């Protein structure tokens, strides 16, 4: 049989439906592909092969018995290692949760299981989703399938790379400031961040609660729609979940939008935009013009403050959300024997000097337990963001940082509300440049943060946004085009993205 793994999920499903392949065969083909390439790509933290084959066999059996099956029946799906899956380890790519076994299913995982997806493995990410390169994983880097010396982007780099490398047709990621769209752009696949509140966050290990959103990766817009439909919808366990029915988008995704008004934003052409990216975006604009869309210039005057705003709000929430990892209840705890010995030595040394102030300054055992467990359990980027957040929320600083950031966030949302009075979607680059080299930015957190320039605003404003391939650099790296739509307009977003895909085509497959 021809190689199944490069096929789209829709095509794979039709082969399953017609009985040309079984889910076990399809799952095995992907497991074989993972075996063949993942030692070079490093997309997966854990491949759940046995469970996947058992799920596939059960689905094949039900299919043979003529039972009705879910919309993802038999299709392999890779999941970012940040969603709770009952009985499985959920590491968040952190030493802190290296051995943490989730006792319950995230709503998204429950929905995937209900849709009869085959959960093939857990993908790599930046620790607790903090980062844009997947280099902040405590366990391994992930390599960009287009150039193994380069980063796949992040924080959902494992999911993007798995799809780009045909290790899975579909993958789940999360996007707090661009963590789906940026790696999708850098890996030449499609990735969508739905409207905040559209997909349940229950069971998603929180980074920044007001910004986090779960979303789909695939190699085609249609496949993204298929996966999105399976996970979207109201959830009683998530108070921030939109209490609205999420209508299926897959049945209509191939219908072009008539009279589409596409907004282009001069502020997007900021300093630092790679000329090749600019050219590819310009070409994307022309494609829409050729399709009969109206191109309208709109302004987002507060867009320039997006990064600053984001890097106050996200760390503030993170500093609170990550307080629970204290070594007391679960997760990493420092070696207590060594800790007590260390404290005893410090007390002895201080006693010998007779310095009472120094003795008083020594941590209590509890404080030292917290300090050491957290210092050992969290990597440097996570620690950096916790410290940023604690500072931004501190008494005397909160008004200048956190409260001010909330105000700017409202202004950014207003910019979009006004822009969407004139246009249906807003088009721009997903990232300022194509994939960078692994290690290139690890010592320069500020440059790394600036890669989120075009993506954070959608999170701050709660909008749905998608990245689709729109060109290749001369050095053979994919370039992504971002579309944004008003809240809850995923259907419009997907149909507009599909129009571009129809004109441009999907990105070619990376050769590995």
């Amino acid at each position, binding site marked *: 049989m021809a190689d199944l793994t490069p096929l789209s999920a829709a095509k794979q499903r039709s082969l399953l439906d017609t009985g040309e392949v079984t889910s076990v065969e399809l799952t095995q083909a992907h497991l074989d592909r993972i075996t063949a390439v993942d030692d070079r790509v490093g997309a997966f933290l854990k491949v759940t092969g046995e469970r996947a084959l058992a799920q596939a066999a059960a689905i094949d059996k039900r299919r043979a018995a003529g039972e009705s099956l879910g919309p993802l029946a038999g299709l392999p799906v890779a999941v970012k290692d940040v969603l709770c899956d009952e009985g499985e380890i959920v590491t968040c790519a952190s030493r802190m949760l290296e051995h943490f076994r989730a006792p*319950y299913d995230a709503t998204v995982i429950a929905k995937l299981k209900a849709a009869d997806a085959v959960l093939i493995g857990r993908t790599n990410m930046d620790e607790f989703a903090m980062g844009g390169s997947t280099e902040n994983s405590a366990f391994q880097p992930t390599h960009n399938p287009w150039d193994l010396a380069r980063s796949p982007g992040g924080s959902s780099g494992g999911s993007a790379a798995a799809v780009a490398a045909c290790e899975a047709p579909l993958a789940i990621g999360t996007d707090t400031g661009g963590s789906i769209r940026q790696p999708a752009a850098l890996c030449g696949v499609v990735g969508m961040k739905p409207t905040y509140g559209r997909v349940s966050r*229950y069971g998603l290990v929180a980074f920044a609660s*007001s910004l986090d959103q779960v979303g789909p990766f695939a190699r085609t817009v249609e496949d993204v729609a298929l996966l999105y439909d399976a996970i979207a919808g109201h959830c009683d366990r*998530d108070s921030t979940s939109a209490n609205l029915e999420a209508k299926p988008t897959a049945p209509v995704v191939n219908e072009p939008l008539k009279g589409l008004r596409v907004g282009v934003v001069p502020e997007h052409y900021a300093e630092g935009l790679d000329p090749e990216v600019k050219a590819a975006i310009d070409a994307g604009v022309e494609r829409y013009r050729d399709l009969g869309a109206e191109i309208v210039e709109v302004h987002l005057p507060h867009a320039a403050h997006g990064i600053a705003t984001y890097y106050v709000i996200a760390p503030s929430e993170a500093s*609170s959300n990550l*307080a629970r990892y204290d070594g007391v*209840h679960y997760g990493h705890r420092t070696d207590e024997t060594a800790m007590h010995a260390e404290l005893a030595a410090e007390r002895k040394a201080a006693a010998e000097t007779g310095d009472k102030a120094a003795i008083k300054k020594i941590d209590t055992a509890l404080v030292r337990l917290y300090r050491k467990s957290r210092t050992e359990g969290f990597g440097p980027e996570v620690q950096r963001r916790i410290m940023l957040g604690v500072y931004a929320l501190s008494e005397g600083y909160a008004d200048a940082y956190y409260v001010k950031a909330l105000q700017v966030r409202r202004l950014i949302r207003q910019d979009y509300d006004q822009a969407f009075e004139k246009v249906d979607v807003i088009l721009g680059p997903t990232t300022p440049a194509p994939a960078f080299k692994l290690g290139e930015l690890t010592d320069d957190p500020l440059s790394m943060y600036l890669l989120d320039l075009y993506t954070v605003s959608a999170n701050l404003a709660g909008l749905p946004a998608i990245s689709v391939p729109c060109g290749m650099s001369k050095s053979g790296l994919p370039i992504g085009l971002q579309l944004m739509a008003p809240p809850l307009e995923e259907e419009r977003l997907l149909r507009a993205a599909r129009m571009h895909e129809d004109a441009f085509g999907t990105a070619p497959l990376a050769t590995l």
Partner: protein
Amino acid sequence: MSDYQTIVGLEVHVQLATKSKLFCGCPNRFGADPNTQVCPVCLGLPGSLPVINAEAVRLAVMTGVALDCTIPAYTKWDRKQYFYPDLPKGYQTSQFDLPITEHGALAIACDEQEPRTIRITRAHLEEDAGKSLHDESGAGGDTVIDLNRAGTPLLEIVSEPDLRSAAEAKAYLTELKLILGPEYLGVSDCNMQEGSLRVDANVNLHIDDPKKLGKSIATPIVEIKNLNSFRAVERAIEYEAQRQWRDWQETGRRIGEAPKQTRGWDDNAGKTIPQREKEESADYRYFPCPDLAPVLNPGLEVERVRLAMPELPAALRLRLVTDHGLSAYDADVLVNQGREVVDYFLTVAAESGDAKLAANWVTQHVLRVMNADGKSLEEVGLPPERLAGMIAKLTAGDLPSPRSREVFELMIADDLDTDAAMAKLGIAAVDESELVAICRELLLANPRVVADVEAGKQQAVGALIGQAKKRNPNADPGRVREICLELIAKGV
């Protein structure tokens, strides 16, 4: 010792009597085995999210209405952040700047003084922490954590520093407990032993300026914790006032010259003991909880709670005094027993037609039986209609008053109505003519008594009363006396 005024503000935590916890479906129940009433949400496991318990919001609004608070249309949740092993998320979900209720008042009456209004600053909702169980054997064993209590709903009711004595603090707590407890609103069990009502007291002194320049001097505020009974609250405040007075005389330290101190009450030693002072004031880094939507309490819904609000103790006391002519004391006794006893009284009063007598019987006899035997009103087994029937017979003169207590006891003991009890005791109303005949007979047989009375010694009639009762045990002594005097006056 009129040199200073004691200033007290109370922070009262009441655990709301909801079925489930504040943010998850776990049972809100006391006394289960450790860590059995827990789920991913109250354990603070990665990925879990809170969902607000609407019943807790309703009970908080009820409390706010009962305490005359304003109920803002918009209230939100904030995270109060600190590390402690029994706080699984590293923060407590609470309310910082926009509490669910604020600016209330509670009237208290203390030592028969005019009622005073104590202002209530705010009452806000928050989740409780778990419990740390320390090894108290001294062997240095591990501290263990029970998270059953984590996430149970608390309402923190903060008073202004309007209380002026330990007795007032006790009166405030007693009234608060009466309103919120099972007797009236039932928003909480208000059980101090089980921790469903917890009190912290902030105490300082306002000392008259020795130079008489008019302004008093405030001593540093001390927060007293570990108060396990109302009695402990009273004793601790009294102790603390004296301690601060001595401290002032020794050090002259004023408010602001020493950090706010936390002291624990040692009930056995009868004194407050300093708890570890925080070197710097804690920064809780409050910020709005991004996992919870703000709560909207539209005026209409608040109005609905207001309309459904049962009559509260203060209004009930007033009604008993003004509408039923009860003494303030009797009204207080009845109302403090709870709504059930008040309703019982109202039925007895209505059916018997004599509210004062009804109040006497309920407060003196029914409550005596309840208290002596630790019985509920229902367990006493005297339906209000029966008591009313007895009182009606009493006022009509059909039941001789000296025998009423016997009838009352028998009605309870044998589950009888008044007629049956009287029949069993052989009590029958004595016919007036029979009584006159008996009196006449006795006077004729006792000319000495007649002579004494005629000589002005009316009390001589007393010698005949016992004899009259021998002839007919139902003879009313008062009536016998009256008839005898009348007969003598008429010349027998």
